[in-house]
């Protein structure tokens, strides 16, 4: 019964959307709409952008922000629960790219108008465009794009005589770190960041977590138990098992990696750009001057690395009563000016390649060119409407990283396939 009722409501909601869109053309009685933008927590940058765009709109619309939970999975849960209820109060949402296919497939995203698709993908780094695409269709608008780079302490590589102008491999940095008695920071905690790492390793080795997508979840073909997958597992274990892994490696998140790197025995870390302004602010410029950045470590010396891709896409809720105006606001939010401001204020890199040439950006992030290069190389996490099961399965199977072995890939494949088929709990 709830089923039938939902569908009935769906039809009703669609009719209301249509009616209000039509009405929007004819009359202006109801005053300017207030758009609600669901944002991921940040240090206030998105709220400032919302204000700026409200001012720019000259009274056509007002943007209010609502904050989502801190972790990616929590953000998805909260949005989906509201969207499944066909909630019209969600106008704009900040989406983690891996969840875009699920939202698109469930019909939660209003289609991006053709002209806007072109305007919002021109000059955007390729990884960010890929992340906003599902079934060869742009379904969301890239806002900012994140990537991890390899951070190293200049003093450490100097002492070890490691040439960081050339690409380095995981094996190399583990060797140097052990020799110098310093730490390698990576995210070994059981969280989304673990999938980010696994994916980057597999992609760097030339493989993919999903080899073959399928409509039915149980038919999805995983690429974990392949040559590339095995290489990835080997590297993971090598790092986690080495003396260079921190004592709390199995609970290490981005924050803990940054903390370890700031310490006396910081050596290397793979992490997002936020670590640099953080070092400047909480410890001091002296430490930050010892920070160097290079492209993500390679798995194989001869294959370019595929660094992790993160960031945020903007989606417009399918049940919003102001779809057209919401897209207008989205275009304002993702403007070059706002992307640059956000890069500077919150340390989250732009998706527009041109933003990296901005003098203020270069001043705050001297390593901006490395970040841009990394974004061009970056590979998104697997795209699937069942991403949450896949990442959950990977987190369960590849944790703790030190326990990963030759059998892990096969076990994970079996486990995730069973979960997708509804034969096992997660």
């Amino acid at each position: 019964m709830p089923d039938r009722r939902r569908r009935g409501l769906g039809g009703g909601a669609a009719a209301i959307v249509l009616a209000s869109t039509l009405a929007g053309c004819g009359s202006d009685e109801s005053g300017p709409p207030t758009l609600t933008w669901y944002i991921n927590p940040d240090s206030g940058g998105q709220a400032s952008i919302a204000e700026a765009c409200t001012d720019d709109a000259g009274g056509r619309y007002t943007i209010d922000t609502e904050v989502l939970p801190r972790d990616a999975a929590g953000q998805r849960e909260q949005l989906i629960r509201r969207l499944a209820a066909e909630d019209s109060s969600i106008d704009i949402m900040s989406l983690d790219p891996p969840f875009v296919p699920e939202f698109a497939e469930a019909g939660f995203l209003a289609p991006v108008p053709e002209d806007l698709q072109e305007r919002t993908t021109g000059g955007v780094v390729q990884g960010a465009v890929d992340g906003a695409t599902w079934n060869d269709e742009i379904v969301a608008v890239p806002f900012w794009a994140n990537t991890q780079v390899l951070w190293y302490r200049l003093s450490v590589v100097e002492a070890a005589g490691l040439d960081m102008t050339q690409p380095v491999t995981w094996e190399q940095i583990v060797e140097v770190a052990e020799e110098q008695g310093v730490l390698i920071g990576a995210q070994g905690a059981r969280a989304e960041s673990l999938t980010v790492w696994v994916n980057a390793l597999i992609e760097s080795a030339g493989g993919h977590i999903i080899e073959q997508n399928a409509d039915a979840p149980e038919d999805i073909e995983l690429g974990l138990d392949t040559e590339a997958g095995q290489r990835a597992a080997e590297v993971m274990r090598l790092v986690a098992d080495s003396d260079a892994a921190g004592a709390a490696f199995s609970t290490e998140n981005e924050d803990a990696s940054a903390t370890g790197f700031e310490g006396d025995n910081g050596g290397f870390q793979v992490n997002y750009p936020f670590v640099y302004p953080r070092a400047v602010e909480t410890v001091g410029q002296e430490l930050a001057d010892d920070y160097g950045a290079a492209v993500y470590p390679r798995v194989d010396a001869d294959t370019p690395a595929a660094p992790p891709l993160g960031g945020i896409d903007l989606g417009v809720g399918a049940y919003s009563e102001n779809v057209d105006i919401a897209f207008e606001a989205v275009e304002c939010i993702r403007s070059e000016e706002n992307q640059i401001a956000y890069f500077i204020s919150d340390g989250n890199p732009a998706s527009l390649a041109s933003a990296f040439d901005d003098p203020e950006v270069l001043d705050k992030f001297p390593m901006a060119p490395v970040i841009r290069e990394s974004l061009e190389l970056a590979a998104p996490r697997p795209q699937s409407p069942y991403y949450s099961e896949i990442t959950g399965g990977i987190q369960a199977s590849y944790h703790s990283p030190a326990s990963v072995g030759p059998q892990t890939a096969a076990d994970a494949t079996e486990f995730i396939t069973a979960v997708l088929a509804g034969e096992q709990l997660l």
Partner: protein
Amino acid sequence: MSQTTLPPAEKTQPVSAPHGTISDRAKAERKLGWMLAGPAFFVMLAVTAYPILQATYDSLFSYRLTDPDNRSFNGLTNYWVILTDELWWKSLGVTMLITVVTVAVELVLGFALAMVMAKALRAIRPVIRAAILIPYAVITVVSAFAWQFAFDINTGFVNSWFAWLPGVASDTDWFGGTGTSLFVICLAEIWKTTPFISLLLLAGLAQVPEVLQEAAKVDGATWWQRLWKVTLPNMKAAIMVALLFRTLDAFRVFDSIFVMTNGANSTESVSFLAYRQTISRLEIGLGSAVSVLLFICVMLLAAVFIKGFKVDLASARGE
């Protein structure tokens, strides 16, 4: 959070018409009784009975919230999937371990606290009583964060303070393994709920007749003998009620695990498993089945206590 009190024992007989004679007055009383108690009764029923029935119904379907069109009846398949899954039994084991450990420690520790409070000097009694209520009243999530920050390898002080203990070092990663994670979770639970148990036991201590204690003393019984032969048997009711409610409360542990480990390192409780299926995975069918199984477990436990240990709350009230 523990949320109970001992049932009041029979004190005064209701002053009402004798059973059997339906006078106008008895009828009026009956009507008034339901008028007064009815709203509370129906609210309780509405917010629990309806949802659990709905959950039972949902548990017979394969139903994903994001894919309502493919909702289909699949009978008891969900239950079969769960009961043949190692994860269910693991979570059940973890839940039972947490329950047994916390309740056992709380009972002993709570008894010690109650003894101190019973004997404590008049000067510090109110201070102790106020202090002991604080863990009880603090939000579970707050307590979980406090303990997590204390044991965390970066923010904590435990490693630097207790490095002299065997097994603790400056780089002990408490949340990196199953055993140590469960240890901290149990510690937080014990800290928070022992005061409640100790208050119930304190009340039970007050029920032990002083005369019996004195008589045993005269007979030359040692302190230990008096404890086992006089004190404990006389407060059996209080112990049983405390045990019943804390066990059922501990069995539903969720908040601390959510905050401290988020289920990593096999620290998932049954409640957490249900949460993950329904709220995170949006698998309403499968998740509802876990919820129903959890409900059945709790009811079985309660039945064991009430029938097996004869903790009959309703009749203890003389109804």
